[in-house]
């Protein structure tokens, strides 16, 4: 940081790379506006993320119970994930209106795939001899799920949660690029058009911080939840 600051003042850096102090001053120039934009983008990301969790885990749950549906659910998931978000946003906006609903859904669309893959893999990650143990006791399918499949899947679920959080932020940002009024994505786009380099960098940094925070929160929850594994073994 210090090096960056000094090099800038010495004139070593190109115009496209501002000094940290300049980025900082961009934040100080309009903290309220940036705060509002941050709130908007975060809210859409969280809403979409929540929907994605419910849908992906629900689908994986069904796949765990009905083996015949597994390929269908998986292929549907792959197909859905291949939709280019930048194109999907205006389309969704046509149907659902150009509002938070559309942008939340895009955030969900952007983030559900690792959740789905993580859950579908996780729900099959139990050990065979554990399953045989449950079989010897004639456990009901629900009890097998609750006592074996779900706990065994937690490391996979958390991997999905961690990977999906930055994607939800990214989706929320992307959705703002086409016709939103507020949000970090809007600020970023405006700054780009106005060649406001400091602002571009500020929005980029804010976006990174949001993604990082999303990841870090889940890494923390994972560490507290999976108490039976030594921290050195976990992927956090």
């Amino acid at each position, binding site marked *: 940081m210090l090096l960056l600051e000094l090099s800038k003042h010495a004139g070593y850096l190109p115009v496209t790379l501002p000094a940290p102090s300049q980025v900082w001053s961009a934040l100080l120039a309009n903290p309220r506006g940036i705060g509002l934009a941050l709130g908007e983008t975060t809210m859409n990301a969280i809403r979409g993320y929540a929907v994605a969790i419910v849908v992906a885990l629900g689908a994986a749950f069904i796949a765990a119970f009905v083996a015949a549906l597994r390929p269908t659910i998986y292929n549907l998931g792959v197909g859905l994930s291949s939709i280019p978000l930048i194109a999907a946003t205006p389309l969704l906006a046509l149907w659902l209106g150009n509002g938070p609903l559309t942008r939340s859904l895009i955030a969900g669309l952007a983030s559900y795939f690792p959740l789905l893959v993580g859950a579908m893999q996780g729900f099959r990650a139990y050990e065979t*001899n554990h399953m045989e*143990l449950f*079989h*010897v*006791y*004639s456990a009901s399918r629900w009890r097998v799920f609750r006592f*074996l499949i779900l*706990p065994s899947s937690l490391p996979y679920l958390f991997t999905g949660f961690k990977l999906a959080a930055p994607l939800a932020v990214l989706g929320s940002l992307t959705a703002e690029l086409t016709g939103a009024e507020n949000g970090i994505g809007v600020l970023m786009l405006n700054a780009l058009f106005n060649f406001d380099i400091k602002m571009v960098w500020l929005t980029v940094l804010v976006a990174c911080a949001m993604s990082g925070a999303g990841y870090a929160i889940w890494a923390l929850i994972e560490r507290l939840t999976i108490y*039976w594994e*030594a921290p050195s073994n976990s992927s956090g």
Partner: protein
Amino acid sequence: MPKDLTVKDASKWFDSRGQQVIALDRASLSLPAGGFGAIIGPSGCGKSTLLRMVADIIAPSAGSILVGNEKPSTARLEHAIGFVFQSATLLPWRTVRENIALPLAIVGRKSKRVARRTPDELIELVSLQGFEDALPAQLSGGMQQRVSIARALVLAPDILLLDEPFGALDEITRQRMNLELLRIWAESSTTALLVTHSIDEAVFMADSVFVMSPRPGRISQVVDVPLPRPRTLQMMSSKIFFDTVNRVREGLYGIDAQGTADLAAGAPAVVQ
């Protein structure tokens, strides 16, 4: 109430990539209710396969298995079977007490099985007091296996199946665990069937030793152990013990001289 076990001409073949593997070839054995049987044989001869068929984990390809005059599936649905796997198979997120109580949680309160022991009584039985709240990762291999034995006993099974439960343990620990297992078995009124690789262990533990021949596996000989109960370590230096061990050894290693003749004649092993 302990259940007797009758296996008659049970065979199992697996299809692995188009090729048929015969894991077990017309195995027969019978074990009276409350008896202690041991299965011994070389690796890959089908011991686990046989045990898993008795527990209804897999179904026989041919032949019949009766647990107390019922199909294994019936016994399983009655929660009458206790199974101790080769590895302890504990759930890593459950404490010792919670692992032992797992069958209770799985079966729920509706179960008709009455003769239950509380997890705490079982913890005492397997001498794990003080470790009730420890996680499996904090236990030694021997302690983990004791937890899994306690778990197998919590629903007071009518038949207890043990697949090389102490295979991974050192000689000393193993001997101690065997003594404990015999004590537990004597107190539990259950039929026990133990798979082992050790001749000494088989003779020391069992009333009858079922000797298996290598692939395709079948039971080639039954050796009765005329030692009284309760068994003590001193018995291991007795002449009866020595003679019985020799008979089992002959059954295991003399297999080619006699076993081939048996197989050629197609006669099932003599079982009483």
